[in-house]
């Protein structure tokens, strides 16, 4: 029986010719990731295992990004645990403030993940690297501890849902609109325990930043991982960022999928997810009059250079609405510098937006833009759960950068085409 792309990568990492959906396997790992929330727990569990060394100093990444630059004493203590562990164990990929960025934007940029890899991260959005044709999935801290010790993780081989993309996205439409549309269609548990495999000629029309954004939100449909076919754009990206050898896996032609959806991306309209679930999607046209207090453009979903360019295109020569705070957070230092050199910051600051150093910050209600009771935000982040960005009675509306920037100008949810 044929295997899906994900199944082939897992078979390769389990030293097997073939794996079947539902089978439990032990997979070798190419990268094990943790952050300032999850790694301290993992480090404590690692100590309980009683091993002196990690399995491979080059295959572990520790990224303090959630509450950094440290927002309070407790956060500083958490990051200190990471820093001291990294020093003690000689972990190469520890990224201090000044070099760090949001983990899922940072790892691909640093060339730490390449096609065909198997990656676990103690962060649910580890599924982002599926954009590169890698198997990557979020796990908990105990899995991370075991991964750091043994270089292995157990998995139940997933079934897959196939998404065949066709057409080209219209102006102002990006990966975020497409993935929100898909989550709206299948629901927040629509892909529970499964892989989402994105194939078809429509993929070639999407930039790598679009694909990172879409793979990132696979978890928002409950998926184990999201994964894209590898094409010229992927290979170009990998050559620009990494020297590592990589393996391109393709699904067998007779691979079995539990569902198949054909999606014409040329028909997708600007999309917004209403509170309090990413599946509560509507087109912006159907959104009605939603007044807002804050806009956040950033996160591991949409804090990349293209997102910032789109936001700048919308904000150029315009002003952020008087009653709105607009916070823009480039996801990594490299993106920050690029945005600065391209003059995007002039546009943002002239428009009345604040630009922050890289951090997860408001995305998880950590710091740098928390909402008060009753406040509403439009955010390019990935979750709009109750209390996600602050007070339990605040609201988060998820969109791509074009709608977010336009909404910042209008003070209500809208598209760039509807400005002036």
């Amino acid at each position, binding site marked *: 029986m044929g295997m899906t792309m994900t199944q082939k990568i897992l078979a390769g990492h389990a030293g097997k010719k073939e794996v079947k959906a539902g089978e*439990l396997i032990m997979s070798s790992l190419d990268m094990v990731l943790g952050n300032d*929330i*999850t790694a*301290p*727990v993992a480090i*404590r*569990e690692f100590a*309980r*295992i*009683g*091993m002196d060394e990690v399995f491979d100093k080059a295959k572990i990444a520790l990224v303090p990004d*959630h*509450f950094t630059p440290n*927002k*309070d004493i*407790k*956060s500083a203590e*958490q990051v200190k645990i990471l820093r001291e562990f990294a020093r003690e164990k000689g972990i190469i990929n520890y990224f201090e403030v000044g070099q760090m960025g949001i983990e899922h934007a940072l790892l691909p940029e640093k060339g730490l993940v390449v096609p065909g890899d198997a990656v676990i*991260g*103690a*962060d*649910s959005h*580890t599924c982002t690297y599926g954009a590169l044709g890698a198997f990557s999935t*979020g*796990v*908990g*801290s*105990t*899995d991370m*501890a*075991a991964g750091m*010790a*043994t270089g292995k993780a*157990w998995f139940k081989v997933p079934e897959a849902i196939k998404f065949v993309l066709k057409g080209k996205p219209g102006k102002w439409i990006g990966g975020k609109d497409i993935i929100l549309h898909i989550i709206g269609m299948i629901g*927040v*548990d629509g892909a*529970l*325990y499964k892989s989402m495999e994105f194939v078809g000629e429509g993929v070639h029309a999407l930039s790598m930043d679009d694909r990172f954004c879409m793979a990132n939100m696979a*978890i928002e449909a*409950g998926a*184990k991982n999201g994964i894209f076919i590898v094409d010229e754009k992927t290979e170009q990206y990998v050559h620009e960022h990494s020297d590592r050898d990589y393996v391109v896996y393709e699904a067998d032609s007779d691979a079995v999928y539990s569902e198949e959806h054909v999606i014409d991306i040329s028909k997708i309209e600007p999309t917004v997810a209403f509170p309090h*679930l990413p599946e509560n999607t509507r087109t912006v046209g159907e959104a009605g009059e939603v007044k807002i207090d804050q806009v956040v453009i950033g996160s591991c979903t949409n804090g990349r250079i293209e997102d910032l360019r789109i936001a700048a295109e919308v904000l150029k020569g315009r002003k952020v609405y008087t009653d709105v705070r607009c916070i823009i957070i480039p996801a990594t230092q490299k993106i920050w510098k690029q945005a600065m050199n391209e003059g995007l910051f002039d546009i943002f600051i002239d428009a009345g937006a604040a630009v922050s150093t890289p951090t997860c910050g408001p995305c*998880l*209600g*950590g710091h740098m833009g928390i909402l008060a009771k009753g406040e509403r935000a439009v955010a390019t982040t990935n*979750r709009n*759960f*109750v*209390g*996600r960005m602050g007070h*339990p009675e605040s609201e988060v509306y998820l969109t791509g950068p074009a709608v977010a920037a336009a909404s910042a100008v209008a003070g209500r949810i809208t598209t760039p085409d509807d400005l002036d």
Partner: protein
Amino acid sequence: MKATGKALKYGNNVDTDVIIPARYLNTSDPSELAKHCMEDIDKDFASKAAKNKNTVMVAGSNFGCGSSREHAPIAIKASGISCIIAATFARIFYRNAINIGLPIMECPDAARDIKENDEVEVDFDTGVISNLTTGNKYDGVPFPGFMQEIIASEGLIGFIRKQASKRL
């Protein structure tokens, strides 16, 4: 192994941000996390869980969706919950619960029928869930063999320690 207790009932898609809001994640101390467990949707959760002792949580589909924070099952376990019954669990939460030794059971029928404050008994070896208040019984999915081994070793860390000592 068995768990008994009074049911606390919740709906679908209970996410990790409501189980333990991110604003409390600058610590990983279980008893501190337990103080804030579920507070955004049920202010009295901590006191209810502590008062009843051996409380069982019952919820709908996709329980524990959202972030990978192990703080979520840790907070629930530290609150004194002896078992979670849900129609389905989000996958990372499922892994985490097993890896830290918090018993969970998937059973859509039981998750639908059991009401708040019903007295419930869960048998982890057979997967049978009994509602002692109504007398109804349900077949839940017991853990597959591989996971039983992890649970028997009191979680993944114990399992790895055992394996490492075998290799020596």
